[in-house]
């Protein structure tokens, strides 16, 4: 492994053009992640056609680096503006934004920088050491029933955070699942709920939906506060977390690395679920559950460690099995295909140079989050000083471009603004926006894996549940759901 890593590093640092692409990916991912309204996906979608001019190693490496640094960059907007740069940063906003309002934005961003780097580096190391054995384990033990069970558990966790009641949490998730059913069904390809619009046959693209629910709805909420005189400008806080504060969170970091890695390694799951599960586990094990959502630094740490820990792990199913774990890894498959390559087990034998350049680049990209991130943080906190009336049109336009770029459809821009209005109304009634988004992202994956799992066991529910990992995850999901319903029916409520 060491020799391969050195060879990969030499290939990366030995060629100035490859190095320039690496730095472009690091800076581009961080910037696009940190600019409210656009995300790493916007940058990736724009760059995709240009990768045909690069070598396969440079193309895949560029996307892998954007994936690492963009996942961190999205935390900045989540913390400073309550606008997660990507769905995997949504749980970061739960505690990050309240910290900003308390004047602790520096502490929240500092924790995000450090924990993203720790999670990412740990994940990159495990990825380099164990991609092949882990892929073999995943092939043997993880099938569609386990993936469906994890989706169910993840949705149960998502429903338990964010909404004012368990009912509102579940209604948010179910609305997301219903939106995800629009378009072709994943088994027979039959058109569903297209309401006469031909463009809807391809379904609701999740980038416009995410931008609408997160970015646009936040602008509307801020506009309403200004109109009704309830706007409180966030305070700029430049103090970083102390070493003691960070050291006291070591268990949360370790737990989130494990959670993030486990979620990342499963095909189709990716960093979003990892962040929710990391946050959910932090709440579960905390002695001070009530402080979550009110500015607890552990919330930021858990979510950011888990989502970056998932980035390295997500490369395992991609490279070893050819199965992407999310939108950005799906674009990496496209980069492979542009160069007449297919990701999968053979890529380790046919293109070892490519693999080790990518691994080395991901390691250094995660490391650079620490150094470049701290420098960037010092400047980006000043974004809070820009008057919101000047920031709002910029965010709305960046979001419009981000929504349009993916498929080149004006319909997607309209969907985004519609999602913004729906999100605005639902937020005012205490529903969970991250719950809706997770439902949209996991809906198709859940349905597809449920269908495949059922076909595998010939519709025998006992055989389905006799798979140990599957039954364990379903049980965990049912318990999470049961506790929520019990609390809703029995526990006294507090004033809104």
């Amino acid at each position, binding site marked *: 492994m060491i020799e391969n890593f050195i060879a990969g590093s030499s290939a990366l640092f030995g060629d100035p053009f490859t190095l320039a692409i690496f730095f472009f990916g690091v800076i581009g991912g961080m910037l696009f992640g940190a600019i409210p309204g656009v995300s790493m996906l916007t940058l990736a979608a*724009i*760059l995709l056609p240009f990768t045909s001019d690069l070598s396969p190693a440079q193309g895949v490496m560029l996307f892998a680096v954007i994936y690492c640094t963009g996942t961190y960059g999205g935390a900045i907007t989540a913390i400073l503006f309550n606008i997660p740069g990507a769905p995997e940063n949504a*749980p970061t906003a*739960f505690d990050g934004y309240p910290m900003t309002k308390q004047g602790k934005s520096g502490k929240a961003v500092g924790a995000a920088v450090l924990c993203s780097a720790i999670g990412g580096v740990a994940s990159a190391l495990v990825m380099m050491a164990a991609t092949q054995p882990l892929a073999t384990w995943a092939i043997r033990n993880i099938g569609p029933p386990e993936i469906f069970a994890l989706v169910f558990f993840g949705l149960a966790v998502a429903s*338990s955070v964010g*909404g004012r009641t*368990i*009912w509102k*949490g*579940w209604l948010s998730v*179910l*609305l997301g699942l219903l939106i995800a*059913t629009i378009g072709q069904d994943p*088994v*027979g390809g*039959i*058109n*569903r*709920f297209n309401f006469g619009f031909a463009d809807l046959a391809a379904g609701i693209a999740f980038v416009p939906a995410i931008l609408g629910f997160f970015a646009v709805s936040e602008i509307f*909420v801020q*506009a309403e*506060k200004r*109109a*009704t*005189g*309830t706007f409180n400008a966030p305070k700029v806080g430049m103090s970083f977390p102390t070493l003691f504060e960070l050291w006291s969170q070591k268990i949360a970091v370790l737990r989130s690395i494990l959670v993030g890695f486990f979620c990342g390694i499963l095909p189709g799951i990716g960093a979003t679920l990892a962040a929710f599960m990391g*946050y959910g586990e932090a709440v579960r094990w905390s002695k001070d*559950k009530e402080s*979550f*959502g009110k500015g607890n630094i552990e919330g930021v740490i858990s979510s950011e460690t888990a989502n970056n820990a998932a980035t390295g792990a997500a490369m395992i199913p991609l490279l070893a099995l050819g199965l992407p774990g999310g939108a950005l890894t799906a674009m990496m498959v496209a980069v492979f295909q542009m160069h007449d390559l297919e990701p999968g087990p053979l890529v380790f034998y046919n293109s070892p140079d490519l693999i080790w350049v990518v691994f080395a680049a991901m390691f250094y990209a995660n490391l650079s989050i620490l150094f470049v991130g701290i420098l960037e943080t010092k400047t980006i906190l000043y974004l809070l000083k820009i008057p*919101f*009336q*000047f920031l*709002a*049109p910029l965010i*709305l*336009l*960046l979001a*419009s*471009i981000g929504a*349009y*770029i993916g498929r080149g459809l*004006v319909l997607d*821009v309209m969907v985004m603004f*519609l999602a*913004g*209005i729906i999100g605005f109304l639902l*937020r005012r009634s205490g529903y969970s926006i991250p719950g809706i988004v997770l439902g949209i992202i996991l809906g198709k994956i859940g*349905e597809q894996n449920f*269908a495949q799992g*059922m*076909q595998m066991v010939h*519709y025998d529910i006992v055989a389905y549940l006799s798979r140990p990992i599957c039954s364990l995850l379903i049980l965990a999901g049912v318990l999470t759901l049961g506790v929520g*319903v019990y*609390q*809703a029916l029995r*526990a*006294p*409520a507090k*004033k809104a």
Partner: protein
Amino acid sequence: MGKLTKSHMIETAVWLLIAIIFFGFTFEFNQPIEIYIFGATGWPRVVIGLMLIVTFGNFYHHLKYGSTIQAGRVGIADDDEAGSYDNLAAVIKVLAVLGTPFLFALSLKPVGFYFATPFFIALIIVIFGERRWKWILCITALIYGLLLGLFMVVLNAPLPQGNTSPFYDYSALILRLNNDLQQLW
């Protein structure tokens, strides 16, 4: 009626309406799939069924506790509460903020991004309360320039050009200028 308010009833009615409408539309694609016994309607109908059950749970909570937050909930954004609309200006302002982006989106096809954008920027700045016209003009020009510089000049991103004259001609002019600029490099 317990602690039910009119808004709770509207909320419940909206969820029921969504469930009914979507359930009705499932009959449009209710075809069997040879390899899958639950067909294309199985999953959406389960989601709709669960939505109905949870809507009744939500209604029960409203009936018993009103708008109170369930104990033990985490990650709730406590600043998402609605402000009080005690004057007409506030209502108009919020409606303008909600409507303007939609009008911008509708204008993208006929008018195009390049022409519609400066007007949209200026309008949003005004709606958000800025009245100093020099600032409005300068910031509009700055944001427009930034966006064109990043997405058109640097990234060559394809943006809507519009399909009606003279807006299409304006987009073509901007793109031609960009092309001339690229030739210089």
